[in-house]
């Protein structure tokens, strides 16, 4: 007879470089779940498998269950056990709960404060619950993790601001135009960065998108991929007034948009602001255009600086988030601990759900 414990075992970007994480990612998740479901001494479990982490949360016999889960994973994944032993982490009790809180909140993520992980944790929990592999302890731990994550995201700046250059550009456009649904976007240049920014605009609701490149064939390919219109590069000055946002990323040796042309365009649309995003090096837009009324000019350095500031602002919030989450983990642990110490496990005992009903393995 062993005592039950809450544990998490896994590996993430903190310990494993990308080439190792590629091998860590579960290829047959369902088969491994079946292995774990049949494992004696493991009462509850959930699997979190993302591009940056593989983690197993469980409730089972202290000492034995984590080791068995590790062995089952290495066997199923054909991952060298000794190598996994070197890169893996293992936490138990309150620390395991706190780890889940931090993961769900995004403060353990490679891109600090990112939101995607919350959905991934939720999917992992939903999958485990639908399989019947969660019970009284994991149900409570995961639900509290979601509450804690929402709390820190709402009450701290851990998710505020954009941290990629393309998203910073989109955020700037939102600061000027509000909704992007009615904004007209022109992308000058067909390089990777311009295309990526155009994609970011599209994903945030910009419906009216046009591409103009010095090489018409390449512009046509990019426009087709984005579902955007095409404009002749030579028409950029004469049709500038038609657009609200202009993203420049050409490899031209000098400016392709002069202040005089921009001023002329603004005279035709004085009431609407113009956002110029210059991502080219050397710059595509004459810097004196920034002095024009209702014109907002940002270059690559500006965008990178804002992204850095946002990243720093998020980092500054980590300590506060951790303190908030630790308090919540302490509170949760005082509730969960008595359940674990009271329920000793006999090997082979079937798992039970929160209502105390026997769950199928």
């Amino acid at each position, binding site marked *: 007879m062993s005592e039950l414990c809450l544990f998490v075992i896994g590996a993430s970007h903190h310990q494993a470089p990308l080439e190792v994480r590629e091998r860590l990612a579960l290829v047959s998740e369902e088969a491994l779940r079946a292995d774990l479901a049949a494992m004696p001494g493991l009462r509850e479990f959930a699997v979190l498998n993302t591009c940056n982490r593989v983690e197993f949360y469980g409730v089972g016999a202290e000492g034995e269950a984590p080791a068995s889960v590790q062995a089952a994973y290495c066997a199923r994944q054909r991952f060298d056990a000794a190598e996994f032993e070197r890169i893996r982490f293992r936490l138990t009790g309150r620390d395991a709960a706190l780890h889940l809180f931090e993961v769900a909140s995004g403060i353990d993520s490679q891109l600090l404060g990112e939101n995607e992980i919350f959905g991934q944790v939720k999917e992992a929990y939903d999958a485990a619950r639908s399989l019947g592999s969660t019970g009284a302890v994991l149900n409570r731990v995961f639900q509290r993790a979601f509450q804690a994550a929402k709390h820190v995201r709402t*009450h701290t700046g851990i998710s505020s601001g954009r941290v990629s250059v393309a998203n910073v550009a989109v955020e700037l456009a939102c600061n*000027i135009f*509000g909704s992007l649904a009615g904004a007209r976007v022109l992308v000058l240049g067909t390089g990777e960065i311009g295309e990526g920014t155009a994609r970011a605009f599209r994903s945030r609701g910009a419906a009216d998108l046009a591409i103009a490149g010095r090489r018409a064939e390449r512009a046509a390919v990019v426009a087709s991929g984005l579902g955007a219109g095409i404009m002749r590069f030579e028409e950029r000055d004469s049709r500038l007034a038609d657009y609200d946002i202009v993203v420049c990323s050409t490899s031209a040796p000098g400016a392709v948009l002069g202040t005089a042309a921009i001023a002329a365009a603004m005279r035709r649309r004085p*009431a609407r602001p113009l956002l110029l995003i210059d991502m080219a090096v050397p710059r595509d837009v004459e810097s004196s255009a920034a002095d024009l*009324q209702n014109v*907002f000019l940002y270059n690559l350095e500006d965008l990178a600086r*804002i992204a850095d*500031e946002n990243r720093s602002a998020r980092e500054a*919030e980590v300590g506060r988030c951790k303190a908030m989450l630790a308090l919540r983990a302490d509170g949760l642990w005082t509730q969960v601990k008595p359940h674990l110490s009271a329920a000793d496990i006999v090997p082979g005992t079937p798992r039970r759900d929160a209502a105390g009903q026997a769950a199928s393995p």
Partner: protein
Amino acid sequence: MFADLTDRQWLWGAAGFYLVGLLLGTASLLRGGRTSGAAIYGAILAGYLLQFIGLGLRGHAAGGCPLGNRFEIFQFTAWSAITLYLVVGVTFRSSVLGYFTSCLGAVLTVLSLSIPSWDAVRRTHIFGGNRWIELHAALAMFSYGVFGLLALASALFLLRHFSLKSKRVGGWFSFLPSIMDLDHIEVRLLGAGVAILTAALAFGSVYWSRDTATVGHVKLAATVAVWAAYCAAFGLRIAGRLLARRFAWTCLALFAAALLSLQAVDASRHPGAPPVLERSPP
């Protein structure tokens, strides 16, 4: 217990709630979090209800709209601005506007309550039982409330414009509404304010045309100047001649001028027929 409260005590209570809204917003902004729209809206609503009771008691005692001295004019202007915010403010989807509205409410009410001389003497029955001239005064003050909200929106516009031009968009600035949203709010508020003030002057002119001696030249000139200036600003904005930062600065300057003009309006009220004066209760 509440039946014994004086109108000023109700108005102090209202000012307290507006201050709570202001402090809630300031605290959450200093913490770096979003301002709690619901909490601020609740504080403003509570303050508004108390102010409604306080002004109602005043109006009952005065036998008409409570506009008998500078204290009441400031209170009524704050109440008008907050009425408009409560009716249309939620559609702006900006908790920052709520924060600034509570700021305006707190400043106007606390200032007027803190200067006893403004409320030492008040005129009663200032409209001489004429409902049209009372409507004129109420509408005129309501339009000033609208212009107060317009000044707030303009201040937000200038802050947002400054943040974008100076490329400082993080921290506190990230909670500001977009430039275009603020511009739309400004235009709508200016249009509404001009329409209400025009109606107020139309009602007043009917009364004035019957007896031109009842309105002093200073009041007449100040009122018409404020109205004409706002009309001109609206016309220039619609024509695309007064835009963006200049438009916002103009709205701010006009509101300052409008507030200053109240002194002239108040001082030259009914020169031909001195109103009944009474001491306000302490």
